[in-house]
């Protein structure tokens, strides 16, 4: 039994792994971990299905050919050395990841900033919480998350801004939900243009116009001041800049938020009256060209009321990655230096001395979007990407892909082979995956936990720090990278955090600088710094005061136009994470939202001749994606929502970031991923189809396809513009190339390969979309050898199963099963849980079950 930490979001749940000795493991929530106390969400609960070695990168490759580590490392080192010699240190860059462990992160940052001599090392956290970092630093003088998770539970008012907590941080949502159940007086306000599942427990939902958050919080600040809800003493002793902030706040027009006046009044009233208030925010705030101002506008309200650093109070940024916080601590952002130090001459000198660095970076480097622009322009000639998928996750993603393809030294260290970024890079280094890595991570409440390996390292994969140090050796920096273990790095990292600190920097884990290997192995989760920061002031600006920041509202950079009148918002789904390289391997997680969809208000859909299930093209000035339409009143008219998860590995053109604009926040450099003007038009597909195959296919050209993992098979949902007969022939050829065997024709466009009695693959095509095909056919894939009756049933179109989609991923409970339970008299979540088990494990589906209950009640009432 091995205690480790979940590899998904920034909640940082403890996980207990029990390896089965055959390459897999049983996984459960760690009852002793402070973040989750044994809970897991649907994604965490399905981790066991993601441990297989399919799609892994297991050997170094150059130009698509396997090479030895020696050749690969020599090539990387020579590339970096020659590029720097010829074009200077700024011509190389690293792009790293919140999925790196702290030790890996530290090694990469040290190499770049102290030895390559460039601060061109940025991280995918840039896409996630860079605006929070910048907002924190402006307000507090340091990148400090002041509070703890328990503050949401202790609060009387929780304001969720731009956060679909129910889906993106489900364990925190469950904690919040439980708190509200225990104390029904607790108020929850959701501020989000979309009516997300999180709204299910909200007392008030403010569906504001996208990008108008600053106006709302400016309005709140002005209103609090007007009502006299101010902590005069705190403001006076511990802050500065209130007047300018108020002036800006009073000047901004709240009508632009497009909210009912009464709702605004309710929100302001609750906020004014409730001392114990937490404002929890996430990507809806950060991923904006005004992200930093949004952060400061809401922090302003907490500073004014002095609601910070005390139980049940404070602004709280929730990160999306398992170790975004660790990266911030290490300083692996291009505009931070190391260990919560910046590019001041004193800090640079301090770090130089600590590292004994020959070539310190002397100024901030390029931020993610700029960095890849520079690759595209040929200014950066060697880029080393670690553990992230920018070709899928950055805006204007096609330009990123093209830039990498043109770059001579496009290097990637990655655990997964099946990634759009790995495809685009010439030099591929196999890295370890979650279950094999060793080190530490920091979650959103500053708790440092161990990630411990519980599976053997596969193939020739290495942990990232080892790759970095081997390259450093080849560059002649062996002494500075002579670590023997993760513990060595952790000690050095801890020592740097304390080096000449003396309380001037919030991040100080110097107490661990002498931890021995045994203690590192056994290290229990601990929170760094104080339990809560800033309750008594003691901010980290030189004068120890916090700053109010005058936030002048501004609209998103690119406004909708007549040609592109819709605002495209992007985000996450309940059962997928990031670019699906891990969650995409789980059949359990594939059921909830099997396809990349664009959610569109019915009004906008009907104006465009789009119906539920239409295949549509989303077009912007930057690019195009092709998704399936889902009509929903949860999005406002004039807006559309698409998940950011799908990649070219999983869908023909489901990579929505190809269409997303590359505008960024001028301070944080975080891209405005949630606001792109687009037009959406139906694609003239003439037929739809479903394929289930044991072995994955190389599909012929199709207008639309999505691949998903089934139990023992891969499923494809497809649609095309070409004549069906032509498509069927090409599809059958593809199926039979990968799944050879006798081909049988059934009724209504069904064709199947049945070899040695076993169903190897089956295809159904037709003029209209039949959503239930997969439900009907999947059971036949679970049968080893079909009986004659079963074979006949298959050829007649399969069983009668129609599950109506997946609801509970843990127990595989379908929507229809829950509707049946409701029809049979279950009227509460608990009753449904008793009848079907749905919602009784991870609880991630509870908001949706609740919605079904509401719908049923509505029908009964009507």
């Amino acid at each position, binding site marked *: 039994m091995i205690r480790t930490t979940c590899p998904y979001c920034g909640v940082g749940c403890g996980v207990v792994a029990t390896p089965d000795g*055959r390459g897999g493991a049983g996984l459960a929530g760690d009852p002793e971990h402070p973040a989750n106390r044994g809970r897991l969400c649907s994604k965490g609960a399905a981790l066991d299905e993601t441990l297989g070695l399919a799609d892994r990168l297991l050997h170094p490759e150059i130009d698509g050919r396997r090479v030895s580590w020696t050749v690969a490392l020599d090539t990387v080192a020579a590339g970096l050395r020659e590029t720097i010699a010829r074009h200077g240190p700024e011509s190389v860059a690293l792009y790293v990841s919140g999925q790196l462990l702290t030790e890996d992160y530290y090694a990469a940052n040290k190499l770049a900033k102290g030895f390559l001599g460039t601060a061109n090392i940025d991280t995918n956290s840039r896409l996630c919480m860079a605006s929070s970092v910048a907002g924190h630093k402006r307000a507090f003088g340091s990148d400090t998350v002041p509070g703890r998770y328990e503050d949401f539970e202790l609060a009387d008012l929780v304001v969720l801004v731009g956060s679909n907590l129910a889906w993106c941080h489900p364990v925190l949502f469950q904690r919040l939900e439980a708190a509200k159940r225990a104390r029904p007086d607790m108020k929850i306000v959701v501020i989000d243009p979309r009516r997300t599942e999180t709204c299910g427990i909200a007392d008030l939902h403010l569906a504001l116009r996208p990008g108008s958050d600053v106006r709302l919080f400016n309005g709140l600040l002005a209103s609090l001041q007007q009502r006299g809800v101010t902590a005069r003493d705190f403001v006076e002793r511990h802050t500065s800049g209130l007047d300018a902030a108020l002036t800006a706040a009073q000047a901004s027009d709240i009508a632009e938020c497009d909210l009912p006046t009464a709702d605004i009044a309710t929100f302001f009233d609750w906020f004014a009256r409730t001392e114990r208030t937490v404002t929890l925010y996430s990507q809806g705030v950060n991923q904006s060209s005004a992200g930093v101002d949004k952060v400061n506008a809401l922090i302003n309200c907490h500073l004014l009321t002095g609601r910070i650093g005390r139980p049940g109070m404070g602004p709280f940024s929730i990160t999306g990655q398992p170790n975004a916080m660790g990266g911030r601590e290490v300083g692996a952002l291009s505009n931070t230096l190391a260990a919560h130090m910046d590019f001041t001459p004193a800090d640079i000198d301090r770090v130089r001395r600590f590292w004994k660095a020959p070539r310190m970076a002397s100024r901030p480097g390029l931020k993610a979007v700029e960095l890849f622009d520079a690759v595209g322009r040929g200014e950066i000639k060697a880029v080393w990407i670690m553990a992230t998928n920018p070709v899928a996750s950055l805006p204007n993603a096609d330009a990123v892909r093209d830039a990498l393809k043109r770059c001579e030294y496009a290097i990637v260290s990655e655990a997964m082979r099946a990634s759009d970024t790995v495809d685009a890079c010439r030099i591929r280094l196999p890295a370890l995956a979650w279950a094999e890595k060793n080190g530490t991570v920091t979650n959103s409440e500053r708790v440092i936990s161990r990630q411990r390996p519980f599976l053997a390292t596969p193939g020739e994969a290495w942990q990232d720090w080892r790759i970095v140090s081997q390259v450093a050796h080849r560059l002649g920096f062996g002494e500075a990278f002579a670590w023997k273990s993760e513990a060595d790095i952790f000690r050095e990292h801890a020592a740097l955090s304390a080096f000449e600190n003396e309380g001037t920097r919030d991040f100080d884990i110097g107490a661990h600088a002498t931890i021995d290997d045994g203690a590192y192995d056994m290290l229990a989760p601990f929170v760094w710094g104080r339990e809560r920061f800033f309750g008594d002031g003691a901010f980290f600006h030189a004068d120890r005061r916090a700053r109010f920041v005058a936030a002048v509202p501004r609209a998103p950079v690119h406004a909708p136009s007549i040609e592109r009148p819709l605002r495209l918002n992007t985000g996450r789904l309940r059962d997928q994470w990031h670019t699906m390289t891990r969650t995409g391997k789980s059949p359990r997680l594939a059921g909830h939202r099997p396809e990349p969809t664009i959610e569109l208000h019915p009004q906008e859909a009907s104006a465009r001749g789009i119906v539920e299930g239409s295949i549509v093209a989303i077009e912007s000035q930057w690019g195009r994606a092709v998704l399936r339409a889902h009509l929903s009143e949860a999005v406002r008219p004039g807006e559309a929502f698409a998940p950011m998860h799908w990649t070219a590995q999983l869908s023909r053109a489901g990579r929505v970031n190809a269409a997303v604009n590359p505008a960024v926040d001028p301070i944080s450099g975080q891209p405005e991923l949630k606001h792109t003007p687009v037009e959406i038009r139906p694609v003239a597909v003439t037929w739809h189809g479903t394929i289930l195959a044991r072995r994955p296919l190389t599909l012929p050209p199709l207008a639309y396809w999505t691949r998903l993992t089934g139990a023992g098979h891969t499923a494809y949902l497809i649609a095309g513009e070409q004549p069906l007969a032509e498509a069927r022939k090409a599809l059958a050829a*593809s199926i039979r190339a990968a799944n*050879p065997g006798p081909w049988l024709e059934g009724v209504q466009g069904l064709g199947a390969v049945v070899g040695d009695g076993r169903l190897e693959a089956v295809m159904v095509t037709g003029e209209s979309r039949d959503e239930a095909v997969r439900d009907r056919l999947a059971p036949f894939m679970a049968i080893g050898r079909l009986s004659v009756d079963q074979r006949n049933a298959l050829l007649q179109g399969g069983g009668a199963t129609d599950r109506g989609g997946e609801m509970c991923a843990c127990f595989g409970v379908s929507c229809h099963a829950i509707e049946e339970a409701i029809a049979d008299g279950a009227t509460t979540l608990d009753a449904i849980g008793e009848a079907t088990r749905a919602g009784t494990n991870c609880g991630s589906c509870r908001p949706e079950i609740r919605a079904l209950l509401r719908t049923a009640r509505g029908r009964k009432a009507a």
Partner: protein
Amino acid sequence: MSEFTEQQKRWLEGFTSGLAARRSAASPAAAAPATPAQPIGPDALQYAAQDRAVAAGGKLVAEEKAKRQRHPLDRWDEVVERSDKGEFPKGIDVFLTKYHGLFYVAPAENFFMCRLRIPNGILNAWQMRGLAEAAQSFGGGYADVTTRANLQIREIGADRAVDLLTAVQALGLTSRGSGADNIRNITGSPTAGIDPQELIDTRPLCSAMHHYILNHREMYGLPRKFNIAFDGGGKVPVLEDTNDIGFVAAQAPEGLYFRLQLGGITGHHDFAHETGVLLKPEECVKVAGAVVRAFIAQGDRTNRTKARLKYVLDRIGRAEFLKEVEKEYGAPLRRAGGLSLAPRPMADKHGHIGVHKQKQPGLNYLGVVLPVGRVTSEQMRGLAEISERFGSGTLRLTVWQNLLISDVADENVGVCVAAIQALGLGVEASAIRRGLVACTGNAGCKFAASNTKGHALRLADHLEARVAVDLPINIHLTGCHHSCAQHYVGDIGLLACKVARGEESVEGYHVYIGGGAASTAEQAMAREYARDVTFDELPAMLEKLLAAWLAHRTRRETFFAFCHRHEIEALRELAARAPLRAIAA
């Protein structure tokens, strides 16, 4: 019948074919010509052989009678007529239609399969593109690369058969004589002309042999099928020792020769044997013609199971047969006696996969992995395009059911590999998958007892996830005793069978191990390791066997050598003790 000299025969042929032409012009096509009393024309050799068989008290098999009634190649009108009517051939016509390269494969599938002829396995981009179109328009939209470095297009409807044949011929290719009792595709070293170690470029020889056959009507009068291969001494094995005639390049101090080997037929447990004859390259085709004519004259036409060349050799003796060949050739053949020949440069068992340097500086050939040889029309077009963009537009099929793209400049290798990967293919694979060969199987062949291609892939999926095989190993899966996938020369050879399991009968295999071929200095027939193993049990059985090898081998000992160092019983015991391993990389 008295023997004619070569000269007399030629004269007779000219004379009699003139007669035949006049006669056929005089009589309506529909009327079956009466069997001439005296064999005449280019078919005389065959007819004479039949007559001798009958005269000796034998009874011609049905196929021989049908051939005699009218030569199958003269039945084009029947092929066209059936195609026009949308009908498939019946009865003996199924056999006869194979002379045009069309195989009616019912009951496996209610379709034709068309097998081509591609000398030395080499075709160019526009031919590949044209075949892709033909497969898509008239077939199933895919093609299979065969163990004779050839292509087969499948799922051809009765009504599209002639369209397909004419489309193939419009590409400068042909399917004539690719089936039934004919000389199959002429194979040669796939790296001919680009191979750093080859002794001779086999392309001109394969081409000359190919055209010799097309232009010699008597080459279509065999009692049974016939295989010819040219091994130029290159890196990629062509398995010439499994052919009826294997020409093996050999270096002697005074020049380059081909060793003549005869009678290979591994399905009947024989490799081609060394005749001791040495041929100059320019002599090979004529000698092959003479061998074939001797075979036409001597082959058994009363028993198809004993009709192959091997049985002629067994019956009349190798020396005697060579005399017949010399008679046909019209001159004595040079004997090796005392000549010191350099040993064959060793072939690379898996040299058909991956990126390799050519003998031309700065150029490379890329061996593309095709899963058990199947390519879709889409991929064929893609590969054609890639060969044009990055190579010389040359595609080289191998007997390992894959293909090479040649003449790729060093600087283009990376993009070329990426382009291949974009087609869903690759140039690298596990040792298990590199050497995986499977015949059509019961999906498309009525003889096969199992779904060989499907099983091959499942087997590879299982083994490569569990056994870290680090040396080349070949696994061959054959559906029936015809041995199209040559299971007896595999490190592991699997011969399909039906296995009774309770009430039902499921697909399974007999397992043979330790086979190999001459070009890798491993010539041996695989030995039986297990019989009647259901496929469900097979992956674990082979996993244990391979695990036993990896655990007990001496340093870098090949599976072949390991198998030969142990008795079968000892191997079974070692395997039984090998644990089933957890999934490893």
